[in-house]
């Protein structure tokens, strides 16, 4: 069973978003997504300052098998990307909700996360997808 922590919200396309105390939002991919992708060998993250709309392709995660786009779950401006992933893309496999985060955004609106799925709804989606 995929892990779905209760402290964050989820996009249908298998990204997570977590509100940090300073009002910024951390973004990553879910346990289900990292497992489906397999061993990651390359991660391309966006440059700070890039302005993203919700649903924009903002990062690329490549496993041995294939390259997959990551879509920004919310609108906002990139504040920082996870520099550790350059040398250690496997952090996404090992700790997708922690050290394998992809980027931090300044959300365009404080209500940005409201449109996303809660943990229960995302778990239900996974169950419906058979995963």
């Amino acid at each position, binding site marked *: 069973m995929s892990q779905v922590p209760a402290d964050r919200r989820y996009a249908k396309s298998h990204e997570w978003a977590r509100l940090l105390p300073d009002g910024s939002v951390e973004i990553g991919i879910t346990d289900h997504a990292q497992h489906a992708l*397999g*061993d990651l*060998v*390359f991660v*391309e993250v966006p440059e700070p300052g890039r302005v993203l709309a919700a649903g924009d392709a903002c990062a*690329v995660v*490549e*496993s*041995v*098998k*294939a*390259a997959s786009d990551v879509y920004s779950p919310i609108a906002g401006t990139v504040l920082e990307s996870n520099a550790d992933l*350059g040398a250690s893309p496997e952090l996404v496999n090992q700790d997708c909700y922690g050290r394998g985060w992809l980027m931090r955004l300044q959300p365009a609106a404080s209500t940005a996360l409201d449109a996303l799925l809660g943990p229960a709804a995302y778990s239900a989606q996974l169950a419906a997808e058979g995963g």
Partner: protein
Amino acid sequence: MGRKTPLHGQHVALGARMVDFGGWDMPVNYGSQIEEHHRVRRAAGLFDVSHMCVIDVRGRDSRGFLRRLLANDVDKLQAPGKALYSCMLNAEGGVIDDLIVYLVKEEWFRVVVNAGTRDGDLLWIRARAREQLAHLEIIERVDLAMLAVQGPEARAKVVELLEPVDREAALALQPFSGRFCGEWFVARTGYTGEDGFEIMLPLEEISAAWLALLAAGAAPCGLGARDTLRLEAGMNLYGNDMDASRHPLESGLAWTVAFEPADRDFIGREALERVRAAGGAAQKLVGLVLEDRGVLRSHQKVVVPGVGEGEVTSGTFSPTLERSIALARVPKATGASVQVDIRGKLLTARVVKPPFVRRGRVLIVI
């Protein structure tokens, strides 16, 4: 739902991620594809390759038939057990399939073809047999399954499963040869660049053999590791690196075409002779090592400044080299370096001669 091998339940029980491959429901990995890859390079890995198709060609005319059917010359096979890699071509010289043919004994050849091409191959082979009115039988061995056990420790693990009387002879097998050990046909062949055996055995015996090899410490490996291993070993994958629209001379397979003796009239020969008469193939298949960060993938565009363009035919991240590598079809005049278009960015790749890795050793300069 795809076709299932007799080990399907074993794969599911091991938690394999299953995918469709050539119409078969096959394991792509059992957890970590990279870990499986390393186990083969360093110890021993176990692959279910029962989706591949075993065809026996038997009868008085079997040798003459295969000398016409295949681009390589089965007359190179004189001693029982010897194996030969060959392409099977259409009249235009395009590759219908690549295969391994064994001489089991005189008037009995065994051909192993790819899963995705099996039905078309059988139709083609049977049609050619009818044309030649040959005295032979074409037998699809649906009663057999197939395992590959690969890696420096692989052969030692396999012989433990054999009758004592067969062990020494199995260990004495030279590369690219095989023999019967009881009902098992054991051959020192593979698709990983490592030492090891491929075993064709009765369907009903494969589960016990699979479990015994797992118990002996061979790691179950899926198609994902099989692909990174074969690409490191510089081996072509049918459908990626060549197909019916490409001939061997532009697919890195000229070494598999036996133009001598000149009077052997194999299917596709005329077309290949025309290519040779015109000065050879306009394109060639080369190895690439990406100098920049990123991953080469099939169908990415290759730009050769001042020369022309080409295409990546197979690309991946090499777990052994920890770099991205590829096979690519490029213009003949391509030199030491090319650019590859990865999502709109042109990255630099170095041109190298495959294989990249063989028998655990890196063969190119990184």
